[in-house]
């Protein structure tokens, strides 16, 4: 069958990312955020990226503070636990470390932009955002009259990220991924993208994927590379694996309130650590243990037999 797409994360980022590209990340909202991949992008010094995501959590803030980003297309940029994203604010308000362009969306309009990208149309339509100043950006939104009823709709420009990075619970070597829980805009972000990188908690045989075809989220033909990265979404949660590290978010907010402190944070948590195993060691095992799930709630099997 198909060749394996498994490769180390640093190699995957080297092969699949380039300066100036558009990148969708954090598409499941508060959970399943590919932090390990984001840190590797920072370490490799990528520049002028366009980031695409709905409520984009502190991974966007981290990429922005590292100077990797030229443009953000998002509905919300901040810290889901504590509120403001200070690197984001400094970039927008003061051009520190560089100025960035922000194309504001709402969550739904961003979902529709990616859904249109996934379906291969140039735009989607909504009845949201009328009367919101968000809709005034004519580069993203245009009013449109329904040809059947005359009702007013808003066209939303389609988005096709050059690369979407998703963190999943498990996938096979070809990129067929099981995902469970709430998925935000992840499937459309993957289907819209030119290429997809999966980081995964586990690599499993294809037989396991086929045992529950409704659980299959990403099919292999969307996927360019697979990187095995346990705990790759910390400090966000991975359903079935570990919880949301709220303390880390609060500590991050404290540590990035001013630019000098933020630089120390990058040294400690990104540049000072070569890879995710080193990150986990630095985080310390006791902390990881506290995040492990302690109350299992297993699904009840259904029959796909014949």
């Amino acid at each position, binding site marked *: 069958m198909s060749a394996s797409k498994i490769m180390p994360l640093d190699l995957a980022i080297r092969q699949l990312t380039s300066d100036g590209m558009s990148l969708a990340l954090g598409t*499941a*909202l*508060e*959970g399943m955020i590919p932090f390990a991949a984001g840190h590797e992008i920072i370490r490799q010094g990528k520049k002028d990226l366009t980031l695409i995501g*709905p*409520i984009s959590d502190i991974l966007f803030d981290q990429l922005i503070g590292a100077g990797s980003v030229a443009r953000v297309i*998002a*509905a*919300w*940029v*901040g810290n*889901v*636990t504590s*509120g*403001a*994203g200070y690197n*984001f*604010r400094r970039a*927008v*308000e*003061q051009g520190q470390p560089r100025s960035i362009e*922000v194309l*504001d*969306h*709402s*969550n*739904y*309009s961003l*979902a529709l932009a990616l*859904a249109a990208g996934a379906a291969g149309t140039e735009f989607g339509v*909504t*009845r*949201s*955002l*009328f*009367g*919101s*100043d*968000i809709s005034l950006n004519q580069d993203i939104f245009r*009013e449109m009259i329904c040809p059947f009823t005359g009702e*007013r709709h*808003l066209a939303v420009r389609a988005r096709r990220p050059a690369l979407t990075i998703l963190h999943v619970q498990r996938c096979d070597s070809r990129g067929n991924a099981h995902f469970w*829980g*709430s*998925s*935000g*805009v992840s*499937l*459309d972000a993957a289907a819209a993208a030119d290429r997809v990188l999966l980081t995964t908690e586990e690599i499993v045989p294809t037989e396991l994927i086929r045992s529950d075809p409704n659980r299959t989220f990403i099919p292999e033909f969307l996927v360019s590379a697979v990187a095995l990265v346990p705990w790759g979404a910390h400090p966000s*949660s*991975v*359903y*079935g694996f*570990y*919880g*949301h590290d*709220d303390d880390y978010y609060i500590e991050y907010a404290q540590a990035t309130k001013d630019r000098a402190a933020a630089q120390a944070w990058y040294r400690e948590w990104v540049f000072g650590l070569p890879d995710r195993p080193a990150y986990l060691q630095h985080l310390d095992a006791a902390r990881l243990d506290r995040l492990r*799930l302690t*109350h299992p*709630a297993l699904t009840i099997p259904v029959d796909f037999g014949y």
Partner: protein
Amino acid sequence: MDALISSANVVVDYTPQELMVAAAAREIADGELVFVGMRLPLLAFLLAKRTHAPSALGLFENGVIRDTAAPHGFMTMGDPVNLTYALKCTEMKEIMAYLQRGRVNLGFVGGAEIDRFGNLNTSMIRRPGEDGFVRLPGSGGGADIACLAQRLLIIMAHEKRRFKEKVSYITSPGYGDGGDWRTGAGLIRGGPKAVITTMGILRFDLETREAFLSSIHPGVTVEEVKANTGWDLKVSTEVSVTRAPAEAELAVIREYDPQGHWTGWRKP
């Protein structure tokens, strides 16, 4: 059932946030579909379910639908426990389609700034005469909820710098500049039902759509509310006192916020 606390010299044994939660809960009717956020709105939803609205359902924009409280508290809607024994987990597009189709009865939104017609700003604050601006996180799902929910409930701290004659950016539209502005703007339904603040509850005139003070919280005066509002706030001729949370309500709120993270009833 509950001892109303209606003047300032009674010992206040609840926090303003707890009062807001109780007031918000009363806006939820049984069987309704509620777009739930985190923090106070989530507590209000859970309180309503435990009191008068047992069959209300909660929607979370990451893709979760719940008919019961999660088996443990959580700080973000993406915590695994918010999915445990959920009624449905799906993608955001489906949740938002229910909203746009008109199936969501009530949504909650907050904001950094609000004006007299209930327009909210969560995007960017520019102050007249000042050079720079403050960049806020943005809409998230707020603008969608404000545009598309049947009714909107706004929850905010009542501060003069937040209650402004005009917001510098309309992220989530209320009633625009009043009257039937929403229809003219292209909106197909909805609009703010009430603004529940730390000092009172504002409602909107059915014709002009301007906010007026409908009730004041126990211990607060009309003058204090007006002094903390950035426009000449109209006051109902029948301004009432917000009903304080009952013991039973407080017990539920504290069960769901055991550390006081959101309501501050205990130092977290």
